[in-house]
């Protein structure tokens, strides 16, 4: 597997990303935060519906340039807020793959089809070029209802020359094969974040009530299937000293290293001990 790019947000900034998109009224927000649902840091994306107009396109996204006919993009997603406020026909897209002209080749996220239905995993994908050069796209929903309880979810979107796939937690949720008469263009730009499209809810009353708050981490783009992080995702314990003195640390009476350190530990109760005195 050739990895095109990956990001754990450990650097604490978004300097590795070539594009940042914040659009909408009011505009959303994003930035690296200490929200350790997978690693120590994650990126926060907030997209807020307009208080005055119908929700159309509000985006809080980051992106990188690629050039691939076969592309997999995986990210862990933690939906902290907003699912229960979704209205019929609302869509939140978390991964976007763009064509050279800037139009969308494929998007993956969640979609709600009626006021009473639970949102489901969904993709929208380009599949046929029209006589006038434009392309026809289609929405397709998976079969799994989205539980609004926040949890880390592994989301992976594949675009190949004639196949689109959406993988959720390592399971193939959606697979669509297309037969375009004109070959689909390469993906030249991949985005993650929140791209909130809607049809049902507007205006946002009170402002901010219809906020999508999503965290993402462990982003990987590659030329073949990536899948979830292998093995259980163990909690990470970060141990620092103040001032930073490279203090020896023991977990459950085993020396694990010197501060600052990040140790993966099993869920449950552990003892953590640092040296009482150090000479530096």
């Amino acid at each position, binding site marked *: 597997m050739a990895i095109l790019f990956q990001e754990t947000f450990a650097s604490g900034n978004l300097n590795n990303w070539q594009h940042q998109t914040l659009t909408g009224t009011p505009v959303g927000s994003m930035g690296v935060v*200490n929200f*350790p*649902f*997978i*690693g*120590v840091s994650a990126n926060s994306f907030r997209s807020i519906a307009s208080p005055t107009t119908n929700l159309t396109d509000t985006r809080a996204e980051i992106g990188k340039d690629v050039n691939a006919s076969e592309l997999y993009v995986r990210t862990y997603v933690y939906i902290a807020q907003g699912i229960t406020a979704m209205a019929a026909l609302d869509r939140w897209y978390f991964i976007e793959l763009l064509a050279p002209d800037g139009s969308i080749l494929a998007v993956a996220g969640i979609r709600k089809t009626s006021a009473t239905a639970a949102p489901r995993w969904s993709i929208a994908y380009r599949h046929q070029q029209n006589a006038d050069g434009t392309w026809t796209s289609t929405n397709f929903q998976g079969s799994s209802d989205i539980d609004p309880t926040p949890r880390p979810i592994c989301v992976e979107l594949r675009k190949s020359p004639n196949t689109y796939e959406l993988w959720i937690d390592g399971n193939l949720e959606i697979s669509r094969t297309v037969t375009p008469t004109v070959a689909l263009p390469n993906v030249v730009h991949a985005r993650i974040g929140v791209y909130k499209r809607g049809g049902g809810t507007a205006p946002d009353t009170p402002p901010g009530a219809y906020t999508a708050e999503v965290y993402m981490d462990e982003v990987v783009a590659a030329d073949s299937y990536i899948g979830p992080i292998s093995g259980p995702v163990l*909690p*990470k*314990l*970060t*141990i*620092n*000293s*103040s*001032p930073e*003195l490279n*203090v020896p640390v023991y977990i459950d009476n085993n020396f694990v290293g010197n*501060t600052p350190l990040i140790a993966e*530990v*099993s*869920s*449950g*109760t*552990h*003892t*953590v*001990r*640092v*040296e*009482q*005195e*150090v*000479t*530096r």
Partner: protein
Amino acid sequence: MKYRFTHWENGDITPQRTLTLSADAAVTATYAVMTKRLTFASTPIGVQAVVNGQTITAGQSIDLPEGTQVTIIVPGEVSV
């Protein structure tokens, strides 16, 4: 320089603590420089000395990091 553990970020003051983890967590151990107190006395009283560049008067004390090499300068003659 010697440092001694003082407390964790949650206020615990023993260097060993128990954590129950269900998600990622971060802890910080705070240390303080260990010091020794040097008290200067003189006969006759009231003589001034310079300890590592700092002037003190007999009867006063100065706290220095443990292990610090100390240079003390007292006057060769004093008027009383």
